Structures are given as structure tokens and as C-alpha cells.
């Protein structure tokens, strides 16, 4: 695996300068690797990992299962791409199983998310049904365990 991609998947925040030191390459090479990953469509961008279920985050998140009618020639693509363009939609996946699309939505309040579902999503032609599940609490987000004590504190500071 590309050393930079490996560092990215291992999580933790490293600047390009730190990545260069860890991977044992120059900073220019790290940037080149990142650019290549971007060109390949693997690396899409940086985002912080946030626990939006905290009250102080002031956000509501929901997962929506969408059943829809596939179209001749394009299957689900046209409609899925159209849905994905809404700002409320954080992620959108085509799934195997009892529904077609799984959509992660977030908004500032329950009302706003509900309005998106009832006014935008379910009124689209081709959408047969939706089933909305609001998230109540996060236990793990982007590989980060939430609420787990920092283990570093448990290690003795000096040991043989």
C-alpha cells in the first residue's frame, strides 16, 4: 500500500511534514502521493471527526433507507446522484438487501431534517418509500471510541 495512504487509514492527525518524517520520505513526495490519491479519486478531502450527537454540537443526524424504482439504462445512478447534491446529505450509498439507498443526513434540528425528508426526498419521482432513523447517541465515530478513557493515562510513566 502507498505509505501515505497507509498513514491516512491508520487515523490520527499528522501534518504533511510529520507524515514525511514517519514514512521516511520528503515532504514533496508526501504531497505528490496525496495529489496522486486525489487524482485517483481515493482521497477526497480532509474532514474532522466530530461527535455530532453531543448536545453542544447543535446538530441532528439521521439515517434514511430509501426504496426506489430503477430506471431503464441508468439503474439507480441518476436519482442517487441527484439526491446526493442536497447539502443535507452527508453520505449516500447504494446497498444490497431490502432497500436501495442508504443516506446519512444531518441538519440543525429535527424539524429541518424532517422537512427535508417530507418535502424534498419523498416527493422525488422514483422514490417509492423512505424510512428515517434518528441517531440518539454515538459510541464510535470514524474509528474513534467515544467515552473511552484515554489509555495513555493508565500506563506507568516510566517502566523497565
Amino acid at each position, binding site marked *: 500500500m502507498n505509505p501515505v495512504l497507509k498513514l491516512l487509514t491508520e487515523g490520527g492527525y499528522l501534518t504533511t511534514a510529520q507524515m514525511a*518524517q*514517519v514514512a521516511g520520505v520528503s515532504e514533496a513526495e508526501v504531497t505528490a502521493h496525496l495529489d496522486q490519491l486525489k487524482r485517483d479519486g481515493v482521497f477526497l478531502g480532509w474532514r474532522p471527526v466530530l461527535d455530532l450527537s453531543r448536545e453542544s454540537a447543535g446538530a441532528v443526524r439521521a439515517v434514511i433507507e430509501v426504496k426506489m424504482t430503477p430506471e431503464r439504462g441508468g439503474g439507480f445512478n441518476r436519482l442517487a446522484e441527484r439526491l446526493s447534491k442536497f447539502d443535507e446529505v452527508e453520505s449516500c450509498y447504494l446497498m444490497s438487501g431490502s432497500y436501495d439507498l442508504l443516506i446519512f443526513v444531518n441538519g440543525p434540528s429535527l424539524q429541518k431534517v424532517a422537512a427535508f425528508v417530507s418535502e424534498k426526498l419523498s416527493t422525488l419521482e422514483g422514490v417509492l418509500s423512505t424510512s428515517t432513523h434518528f441517531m440518539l447517541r454515538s459510541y464510535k465515530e470514524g474509528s474513534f471510541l467515544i467515552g473511552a478513557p484515554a489509555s495513555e493515562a493508565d*500506563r506507568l*510513566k516510566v517502566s523497565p
Partner: protein
Amino acid sequence: MKRFIARHVATLPKSGIRDFFEIVSKMKDVISLGIGEPDFDTPWHIREAAIYALEKGKTHYTSNLGLLELRRAISTYVEAHYGAGYRPEDEILVTVGVSEAIDLALRALINPGDKVLYHEPCYVSYHPSVALAHGIAIPVPTRAADGFALNAEDLEKAWQPGCKVLMVNLPCNPTGGTCDRARLEKIARFAVEKDLIVLSDEIYSELVYEGAHTSITAFPGMKERTIFLHGFSKAFAMTGFRIGYACGPVELIDAMMRVHQYSMLCAPILSQEAALEALNHGEDGVKAMREQYHRRRDLVVGRLNAAGLTCHSPAGAFYVFPSVAATGLSDRDFAYGLLDAQKVAVVPGGAFGPSGGGFVRASYATGYDQLVEACDRIERFVNTANPCSAPSSS
């Protein structure tokens, strides 16, 4: 009350790490490179297996030797990785970490006054363990120029009549030193020639970054005189489980088992269950951790050399052992000065024996961001140090 304390205990030297620990543990915001254990938590599947065992009511004694199923798994693992076959029924003893195994072996082998060779700098317990068994510990120096490998010539020089045991720890804590095949073969021949029992502590053997690890027990004539010691603490990040094992000739394992059955009875069953899971399903986790250690080693060795300290690239374990001679400071003054000025903790090399003087041990079992920051601080210290002296040892 002191007059009641047994002489061989009263005269045990205080661990050089202890007083340093007292100071570091009272300070805030210290980046500690003084920690001799993995930063990774035990992989979840192993912890989960221990929980499951607890739920199933596995809360009883096991056989003195340890669970037979675990000994079978150990036998398979040791044969596959170290090229030596041991019978699960009577040639393997499950212990409370390698530390207990060392204690058992020395107590089983040493008559008062018997001599034990060991290489130095070395793990802090070797010398005291020999003293506690009423033996005489004879250090054999290793050097930075050799990457702290052990040389048969130095063993020859140190050997005296009455030597019965040779203790080796490769890869080595604190130096990360290993021995190549040629060196090991000479050591093996030396052991045969001098009729020594070899205690081979291979706790870091999965964490080798240059070439493949070779065990001394695999050389001709060695299996019958080697007690192979290993455990789960480092490779599987299971330090707190306190679980290890000894493999060796049936008579020696039987003698160790007799000491073990009267002192420890058996290793904790939950740790044994966790160890079984580690051997059955843990290899991917070991590989992932090894890859991270490898990258961290290269990072730290590169940075320390660039900072002006001379640091050989250790072939194994998760320690670097740079010389601080370039700063004009002793290892103690360097460690205390660095802690005071930059809040980075490293362990003075003298804590691991006199030949560790002038070096410090820095563990890279710490996250990348912390390592990079620690290296920045060390560089600043080396460049601008006007260090204070270490408090006098008490």
C-alpha cells in the same frame, strides 16, 4: 527493623529506574519515552476472549503446567517460528510472564555460589534475579559499535570456573541489539564447550526489523541445554495479563514446575485463555503493530542522529539507545536536564548496568505525533542545552 531483612535482599541494588519514575510521575505534560511497554491496548478480540472466559465461569486453578490446550498452541507456535519442537505434555510450562520464568529457572538451577553470565546493558531484573537465587552474576559488555550484539570473544573473556548458566536477551531491552546467525553460532559453540545452560529470553523476538529472528535453541546441540523463554507482553501488547512460558528439556521444566507449583501454583486462568486467543487469531495484529514500530524506529533514529546524538539503528524491540557523549553530559545529567528543560523523559542508560553509562534509552512505543514532538524537543535541548545537574543519587 532492617536487621531482620535477609542479607541477599538487603544488599539488592535499588532499581535505577525507580527514583527517576518518582520524579516523572509528579510532573505534568511530560512526553515519556521511558515506558517499557507497548502503547497499543491489547487487541480487542483477545480482551473479549478473556471476558468470555470469565462469563463461562473459567475461574478455577489450571494444571500447574498450564492449560493443555494453550501448551499445544505454544508448541505449534514455537515450532513454526523458532524451529524447535517441544512436547506440550512435559516440555512446556506456562508462567506469570517471562519474569517468573527467569526466577524459576534460576532457582531451579543455581546452587549458592554458582555463576551466571549475562550481557550488559540488560533488563533491570537480571542481576537481582541471580542474586535472589544466591548465584553470582557476571556481566559481559556489549558495545554500540556492534549494534550491541553479543560476541563470543567477550563471553570467553568473562568466563570463569563455576559458570553454569548464560542468560541472553535478544532482541535486547534496553539496546534493541540482536545477534546475526554467525555470532549466535559462536555463542552456541561456546555454551556447548563450557557446558552451560542457556536461558534465552526472546520476549521481543516478533519485533525484529532487519532480517529474520533466529533462536539459539535451533542450533545443533542447543535444544538440550536451552530454556527458551517467551511471553505475550510485547508482541501481543498484553503486559498487564502477566503471561509467559518456558520450553526446555523435560528434567529442567520439571524442576521449574516444582518451584512454580509451590510458589505460584498456576498462571491466572483468564490470562491463559487470552493467550490462547492471541496464538490462535493474533498474528495479523502482531504484524500491524510491528509495521508501526518499524516506521517509528526509522523516524526516531533519523531524528536523533540529525539532532547530533549518535544512535545506531536497533534491529529489534522498541527502544533506541543513543549515546549522549556529544553533549558532554553524563547519561544521568542528560536525562534530568532533558526532563527539566523540555519535559521529555528518557531513562539513563546506567540503570541497565555500568556499560549503559553515556547512553539513554528512549522507547518509541508512543504515537507518531508525540514522537515527532519529543524529537523536536530533544533537538532543542541538544542545541541549546545549558543543563542543570542531576540531583545526587540517594
